[in-house]
């Protein structure tokens, strides 16, 4: 065996050991969560006067098709006290007009509570029908800037950020806040699971019937999201190393955000970067803190259904990861940052950032070695089977977790279909993702910084996003 093939084999073994360890941790957490459900009653939290109020922030850029439906959905959440701040980030479409007409907005003056730098606010509005709905119209500054603006306007001590094109389940906020109710001194951020809404029936801002998407690409992403959230996030959260709280659905202690200066506007991975900075600051100050992932609260989002849009999204995510890891490189392997420094950061650097490059090179080297006769066809077949076999096992494990803990896809047919996709995604889709992620690193080396395109059909119509 050549040194290159030995390296690739070793790399695969270590990577899959990580995956298996995360899966085991996730199984343990999901089992605990299920048992706790036997006695926890959400109604108690709803009626408790000590349940802390929350400000929901929805940054919106050209979301005319879905924004009204999304705001309606958040205004009907089950939570004792909350306000909704929609930040219209200089939309060039009719986002603001749609909101004005739907919620009877009137211009009011709102006193900012925070002072995180952000682009100029042009006007603020409040709904005559629901005074807890505030709409801020500001100069375009990007998503991070809009979030900073929302955090400044927020009236309450906790902010929940959600994308303006997503739908929260009725109980999502109360569930994602549960770690805060239990440990308000320690918990500075929590995140919930994001699931794919394509294929589901949506009525009046609610997902009324859960089903798989019809398209293959979106269904592949369902599998991928299950693996990322149910295995990755639950696993890392259980060892205090959660590095990503999705920008589509996360709760933060406002004072913690202010202390670190808010979301950075010079990265496309502002969600991950903020969580990394929160960890870093808390660790450097020696604070006791927790950043937690909660598997039950669900946020539904629309997945891209074309290769072009998916490629753009994944390249952006990979660039965001690279920027964050580079900015916080001193945390990698540094015991000062606890389990996150020793395990989490090296994992993300070695396997999430460099992984696609090594995977891609692995394919090239193994194929070249086979073609040139350095590697026998038998060994090549073994490598391929091992790589795909482990991939399938991990996907099936995520599916088993879904079945064990959540059973969101009620029909046997859906589960059988997902099972087929758990196998199929290893035969081309995974390799395609690796290729896009390698391209993202090339984009970054070339100095590309833009967000890319995100055309949406909208959960309630047609929308497009470009910033």
């Amino acid at each position, binding site marked *: 065996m050549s040194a290159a093939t030995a390296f690739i084999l070793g790399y695969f073994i270590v990577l899959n050991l990580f995956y298996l360890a995360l899966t085991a941790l996730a199984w343990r957490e999901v089992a*605990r969560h299920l048992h*706790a459900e036997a006695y926890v009653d959400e109604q108690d939290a709803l009626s*408790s*006067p000590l349940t802390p109020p929350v400000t929901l922030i929805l940054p919106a850029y050209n979301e005319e098709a879905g924004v009204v439906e999304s705001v309606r959905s958040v205004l009907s959440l089950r939570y004792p006290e909350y306000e909704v701040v929609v930040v219209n980030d200089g939309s060039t479409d009719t986002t603001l007009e749609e909101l004005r007409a739907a919620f009877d907005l009137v211009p009011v*003056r709102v*006193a900012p509570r925070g002072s995180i730098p952000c682009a100029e606010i042009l006007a603020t509005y409040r709904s005559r029908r629901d005074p807890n709905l505030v709409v801020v119209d500001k100069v375009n500054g990007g998503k991070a800037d809009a979030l900073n603006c929302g955090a400044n306007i927020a009236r309450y001590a906790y902010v929940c950020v959600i994308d303006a094109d997503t739908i929260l389940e009725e109980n999502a906020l109360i569930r994602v806040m549960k770690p805060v109710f239990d440990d*308000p001194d320690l918990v500075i951020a929590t995140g919930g699971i994001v699931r794919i809404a394509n294929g589901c029936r949506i009525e009046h801002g609610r997902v009324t019937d859960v089903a798989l998407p019809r398209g293959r690409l979106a269904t592949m992403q369902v599998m991928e999201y299950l693996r990322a959230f149910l295995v990755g996030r639950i696993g890392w959260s259980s060892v205090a190393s959660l590095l990503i709280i999705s920008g589509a659905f996360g709760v933060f202690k406002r004072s913690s955000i202010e202390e670190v200066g808010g979301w950075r506007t010079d990265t496309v991975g502002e969600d991950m970067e903020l969580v990394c900075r929160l960890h870093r600051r808390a660790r450097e100050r020696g604070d006791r803190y927790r950043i937690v992932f909660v598997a039950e609260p669900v946020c539904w989002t629309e997945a891209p259904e074309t290769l072009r849009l998916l490629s753009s999204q994944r390249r952006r995510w990979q660039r965001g990861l690279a920027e964050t890891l580079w900015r916080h490189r001193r945390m990698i392997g540094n015991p000062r940052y606890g389990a996150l420094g020793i395990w989490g950061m090296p994992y993300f650097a070695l396997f999430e950032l460099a992984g696609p490059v090594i995977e891609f090179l692995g394919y090239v080297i193994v194929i070249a070695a086979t073609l040139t006769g350095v590697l026998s066809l038998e060994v090549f077949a073994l*490598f391929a089977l091992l790589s795909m076999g482990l991939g399938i096992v991990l996907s099936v494990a995520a599916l*088993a977790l879904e079945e064990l803990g959540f059973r969101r896809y009620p029909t046997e047919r859906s589960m059988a279909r997902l099972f087929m996709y758990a196998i199929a995604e290893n035969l081309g889709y995974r390799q395609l993702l690796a290729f896009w992620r390698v391209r993202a690193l090339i984009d970054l080396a070339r100095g590309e910084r833009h967000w890319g395109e995100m055309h949406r059909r909208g959960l309630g119509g047609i929308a497009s996003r470009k910033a």
Partner: protein
Amino acid sequence: MTIVALLGAGAVALGLVLTLVMVVRRLVVRMVERRDARIAAQLRPIAFSLALDTISSPPPLEGRAAIVFTRILGELSVALRGDARERIATVARTAGLVDREIRTLQRSRRAWRRAAAASVLGRIATEAAAGALIGALADPSRDVRGAATLSLGNIRAVQAAPSILAALTTRAVPRAVIVRTILRMGAPALPALRAAAPVGDAQARATCIALIGYLGDASDGRDVLGYLDDPSANVRASAARTLGRLGSRATVGPLLASLNDPAGFVAGAAAEALGRLRARVAIPGLFQLARTSGTSWTSSAAAHALARIDPDATRRAAAAWGASPALHEAADLLDLGATPSDLS
């Protein structure tokens, strides 16, 4: 290459096992659900008859039927009050269902079974389980301790309040569970709260004081006043809010002094309390805070308090030259017809 082949074989085996687990689980869950639904359909009318006192005892039940029947009684009991609830508790006790659950709580090796037993005992609302539930507060599992705590709240076992409040500092039970339990126990838990408030860490003290605000009355104001000088700003803020909630006008003076607290959020909490008390004597201090506070949070709290006490004066102040954004906001909220809770 043996290692590669072995790994490949291991992966395939693991995949097969996981797939089998999924399939078997779905089949088992479906089977259990159907069986329980069948049993519940037979037993539910009996449970209703017991609650309505049309029959005096259930038929002898064993195994799964006993478990399902206990669960039905628990669900029913939560929805009932008075005599019907008492009857359910009596039936559960005389039929041996309570003893059965207590045995599970005390002896089961599996934490989730102990937690489920603790939960059912609370739902059935039987005081006969109080001793076992208090014992379960020392269980090694946090889930069991949490379930036992909630159940002690359901059966209003006030004698457990001191142990439960001690868990605020030890973190043996989630804070939210303790809050719910004490609120369910109601005013009888006040002596334990008053005793627990001076001890424990800052979060425990702040929580006890906040709970006094919801369960106590104006006469508790004097005790709470002392916490306005607590070394922890969180405790001072909690005390200020509680004083506003208790409604004792005798506390206005100390709350006015707290408007100058070095921690902005404590001053804001004091402003909120003064607004709640409609303390007109606080108007000059609140105006000062609304105009000049360096913390926007504090100035907003002061402006909202002013709007509660004197809406017209707030509108006039907001119209004056150089008024602060906080006063503008409060005036606009008033024009929108804001309610007192919108201004809290």
